[in-house]
């Protein structure tokens, strides 16, 4: 199987979107463009386990073919890397299942194989997870309520870079924050191979109470360098796993 690039948006937020397009619908557009959308909802320390407002977190990720988790800030580091890796496996399994369907006929996926035969398929998925290139655009909500958590977010992103750079495949990361001053998102860090010493670039000051998650996601899609220029929002045959010539 060819080596390819996996594209992901990782949205870190603590609240409900309250301005602009419905983020779940933008997320499904991203998925069509071959970008999966993962969401981490960050809880306040005194929050109960399932506060209102964070309900849309799962809607956004399921529309975007990704993974979501709701956690307290302390668990952010482990969660960020778990979500990213799990979403990679999910994407790759989708690709492998497609191949299986071609070999075994319709309606066949790994789960339809007897347990004895799954091992080899899973080894292929793992090999791909280790060697595929990965592009992650991190979209951080920097509205006022997030500001005490930003130090933790920063740490967890450096940690993510450490985890992913242990892989054989190449990684590229970019960080954007929202809401921006005049545009939907602010560039914090352009595409780079490693996230180190990002404290200097991380915004200290945050904006008011608006959370335009939908517009921010929409803007983020445009920042994937390897995504071909879009001719509108109607493309339907986007391939989640873009194969590069090898």
């Amino acid at each position, binding site marked *: 199987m060819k080596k390819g690039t996996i594209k992901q948006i990782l949205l870190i937020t603590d609240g409900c979107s309250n301005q602009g397009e419905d983020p779940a619908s933008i997320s499904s557009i991203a998925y069509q463009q071959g970008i999966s959308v993962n969401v981490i909802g960050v809880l306040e320390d005194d929050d109960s386990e399932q506060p209102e407002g964070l309900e849309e977190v*799962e809607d956004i990720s399921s529309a975007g073919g990704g993974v979501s988790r709701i956690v307290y800030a302390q668990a952010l580091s482990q969660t960020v890397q778990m979500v990213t890796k799990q979403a990679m496996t999910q994407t790759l399994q989708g690709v492998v299942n497609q191949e299986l369907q071609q070999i075994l006929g319709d309606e066949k996926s790994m789960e339809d194989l007897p347990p004895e035969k799954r091992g080899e398929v899973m080894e292929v998925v793992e090999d791909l997870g280790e060697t595929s290139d990965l592009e992650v655009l991190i979209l951080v909500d920097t509205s006022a309520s997030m500001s005490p958590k930003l130090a933790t977010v920063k740490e967890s992103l450096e940690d993510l870079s450490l985890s992913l750079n242990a892989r054989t495949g190449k990684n590229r990361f970019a960080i954007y924050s929202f809401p921006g001053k005049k545009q939907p998102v602010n560039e914090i860090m352009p595409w780079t191979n490693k996230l180190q010493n990002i404290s200097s670039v991380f915004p200290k000051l945050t904006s008011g109470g608006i959370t335009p998650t939908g517009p921010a996601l929409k803007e983020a899609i445009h920042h994937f360098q390897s995504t071909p220029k879009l001719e509108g929002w109607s493309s339907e045959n986007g391939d989640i796993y873009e194969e590069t010539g090898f």
Partner: protein
Amino acid sequence: MGISTKKPVFNLRPGTKIRGKWHQNTYQIVKVLGSGAIGTVYLALYNQRSVALKISHQPSAITTEVNVLKAFEKAQGKRLGPSLIDVDDWVPKQADSYSFYVMEYLKGQSLNSFIQQKGDDWLGIMMIQLLGDLHQLHQIGWVFGDLKPENLIVTHSPSRLRWIDVGGTTKQGRAIKEYTEFYDRGYWELGSRKADPAYDLFAVAMVMIQVYYPDRFDKGHQPYQTLMNKIKANQQLRSYRTCLEKALRGQYSSSAQMQKELAQKIAEKRKQPIPRSQPSAATSKQKSYTSVQQKSSPPKWLESLGIATVTGVLYVFYLLLQVISTF
């Protein structure tokens, strides 16, 4: 771990019968043994026999772990993980499917409670065992990864440290599959998360440290210095200092090398009495290396430690002989 929007862990009531879709074996749930990010492990009955059953919503995760257990079975010599009994799917209702695997049920106690009960000397012995097993694992090209007390158990007669969860086991050269911050060298800023033998040896040192700091601690601004301070502040850990230091810095190239040096430390430790408020210099000078003499005229400090320690001492020498004979 945090709260998931999807529920990865679910509750199976005691008495629930799980019948595999493919192999048609039936397992009766007894109780929960533990649960993690991937799934839940239950004690279950199969033909009147106790087994451990790990069940999950994620068939891919189950398959990955089964692959590891199968690789262990191919390893020569003593068994590394629990042995694998069955792999199957459970479909209680349509469109509601789980994957599970069944393994040997290892009954025992946690490392920390064992050390508390039997005495500090047993920590060294258990670590020598662990390093021996790790050496075997490393030789077949794997790294344990998520090495922590929760994934270890001490089984009895004879006392033996066994692995109960192999979910983090990773092929060498790849990115560590699963880890726990406190035992992860990346978190302590002392290395990468690429699977190599030294990754496990770092975790061995942290397992030793947590025995004396069971509540764990934060890394602070200078993680390595924090660790050194904790080691210096504890008498037991201090006696293994150089060994721990090398493991934390990644200076051991193999598990066998650390095992050998740790065995030396244990031998030195045996020669020096644990300082008391009134140290008796005379007995410490006469301390002999052979177990026979120690047995015939036990020094005062040893008396107080009781017979369990004597057994421990003999066992250490037995292990030392084993280790030395392999080099």
